[in-house]
């Protein structure tokens, strides 16, 4: 088997293993910890024996832990994630559309932030210590520090209230309609996500680009008399792609977590706000499903980054460690 294929299969295997362990954590954190989920959910009503027993049966709490896990996992893999305790519908039907909504949000945010931050990062590295670089550096430092909800609130303060009554402060997408129909509802959430994530990418890319630009082989290319454009395109760029790929994948992972608070602030009907509602309602099946989904996105994004990196680096492609 060619070493390349072996390497990729190994990464895939590790990814699957990680997903499996992730599911263990999700399950453990919500059902296997000391503390009775049924009692916690019912609160005072747990005094009602009948209701209590019914809930326990519904959550499979009367079976041993590993059996619970097994049936839960089976459900996950086949797409039956249980029934939402709060709404009574299946989890899948509850969150199905919301997944699509969140996906739209993340996709838009990624499509906007990746090119912009790659550009800013590269230019900062190329024009190192210039006014542009310093401004971008301080700006990204400040933005990177802010929690997402602060960015969201600042944007709301800026755009939707006192300064300019321009954009809606809260997204009111009627249930059943898609985000695209009310595109102005998307602007602020997407902008928040872009501002939350872009500074990380550009900072990391700047550092990687500087490393490439200061490398011995780029200097050597100049000493060979190569025109500067060739140096950048042929020598620097192929080596800078790798960190760019890794950082872009990381960004997808960050976005997956970032949607939680951002959707809540803007009341956007996605899995993020659904997650918070579920936590508030102690709707364990929904909590489990969404947590698992978000973590799975993270694992897959990293896997994709790893595999792309392997394909793009000659050293790894030809089987050398």
């Amino acid at each position, binding site marked *: 088997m060619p070493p390349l294929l072996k390497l990729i299969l190994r990464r895939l295997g590790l990814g699957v293993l*990680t997903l499996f362990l992730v599911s263990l954590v*999700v399950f453990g954190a919500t059902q296997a910890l000391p503390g009775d989920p049924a009692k916690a959910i019912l609160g005072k009503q747990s005094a009602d024996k009948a209701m209590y027993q019914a809930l326990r049966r519904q959550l499979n709490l009367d079976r041993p832990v590993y059996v619970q896990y097994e049936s839960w996992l089976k459900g996950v893999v086949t797409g039956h994630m249980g029934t939402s305790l709060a709404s009574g519908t299946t989890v899948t039907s509850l969150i199905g559309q919301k997944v699509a909504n969140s996906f739209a949000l993340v996709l838009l945010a990624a499509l906007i932030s990746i090119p912009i931050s790659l550009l800013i990062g590269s230019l900062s590295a190329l024009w190192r210590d210039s006014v542009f670089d310093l401004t971008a550096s301080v700006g990204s430092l400040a933005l990177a520090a802010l*929690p997402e909800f602060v960015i969201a609130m600042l944007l709301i303060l800026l755009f939707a209230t006192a300064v300019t009554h321009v954009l809606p402060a809260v997204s009111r997408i009627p249930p059943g309609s898609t985000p695209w129909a009310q595109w102005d509802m998307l602007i602020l959430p997407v902008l928040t996500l872009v501002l939350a994530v872009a500074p990380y990418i550009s900072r990391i890319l700047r550092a990687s680009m500087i490393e490439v630009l200061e490398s011995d082989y780029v200097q050597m290319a100049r000493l060979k008399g190569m025109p500067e454009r060739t140096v950048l395109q042929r020598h620097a760029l192929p080596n800078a792609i790798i960190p760019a790929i890794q950082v872009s994948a990381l960004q997808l992972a960050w976005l997956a977590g970032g949607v939680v608070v951002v959707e809540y602030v803007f009341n956007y009907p996605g899995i993020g706000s659904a997650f918070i509602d579920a936590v508030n309602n102690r709707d364990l099946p929904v909590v489990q499903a969404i947590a698992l989904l978000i973590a799975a996105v993270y694992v897959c994004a990293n896997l994709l980054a790893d595999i792309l990196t392997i394909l793009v680096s000659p050293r790894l492609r030809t089987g050398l460690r």
Partner: protein
Amino acid sequence: MSATPQITQELIPSADELLPEPQAGGGRRRREWTDLLLGSWRFGRTKVGVIIVAAIVVLAIIGPWIAPHSPYVFVGPPYSAPSAHALLGTDYIGHDVLSRVLCGGRTVIGLSVVATALAMVLGVALGLIAGYSRPAVDDVIMRLLDVLLAFPSIVFVLLLVALLGHSLVLIVVAVAVTHAPRIARVARGATLEIVGRDFVHASEALGVPRRKILLGEILPNITSPLLVEFGLRLTYSIGLIAALSFLGFGLQPPSADWGLMIQENRVAIVVQPWAVAVPVILIALLTIGTNLATDGVSRALIGIDRDTGAK
């Protein structure tokens, strides 16, 4: 390591070589991290960051003593505009916004510091052990930590809150647990770099016990990147804990808390922006301040690495 000649002395001299020689006998005990902190002060951003943080921390600590009213008392009709009586107006229920702002910082800052400290202890211990153990043990530890890393911090904390309910202790522990793997990664990376150096082999050859080597040889050499990591984690902890309060999982009403205030008052943001704007700005400044200071320390560290030719 190949055994072929390498003149490794750098041509560009280390920073020390351009300074006058320190006193020969009885020199002060020079610790790495004090050097680092002093060195980072050179940067404008460090100064700005430290000043901002210091100002806000002082404000949060003495706030309750200088607040004009108690944060629980109704001083006027809800959402009234700023007046002489209530300089920032009143909030959703009639409390004085200024007083609540002055009293609302302690919890966030206190919890964040504790959570970060706890995370550092956990993470550094795990990272040291992973870095200095057999590859098999290292692998297992890192794989397990990777699993935790798959969860965005807030998702993990809320996952635990969903079952166990929200208590401040739980939040502190959960935040610490979610930061620990990231710290462990950094600690492990730094440890691995040190473990390969000959002075560690030298102590091993003498038969010095492993624990002594970890604490005496390795740990003192990784304090600098850990200092930077502490700053970063503190910044994120503040953000996370404020967000949790904002979402309603932290302090409960009627307690005064910046995150909670933002949530309570944002419905009427058009009418009474101050009740939201002021806590938002304070949290923003605080996190920006810690991040600036941390970046200054990080730059000083890179400068030191370059000077001592740490290759």
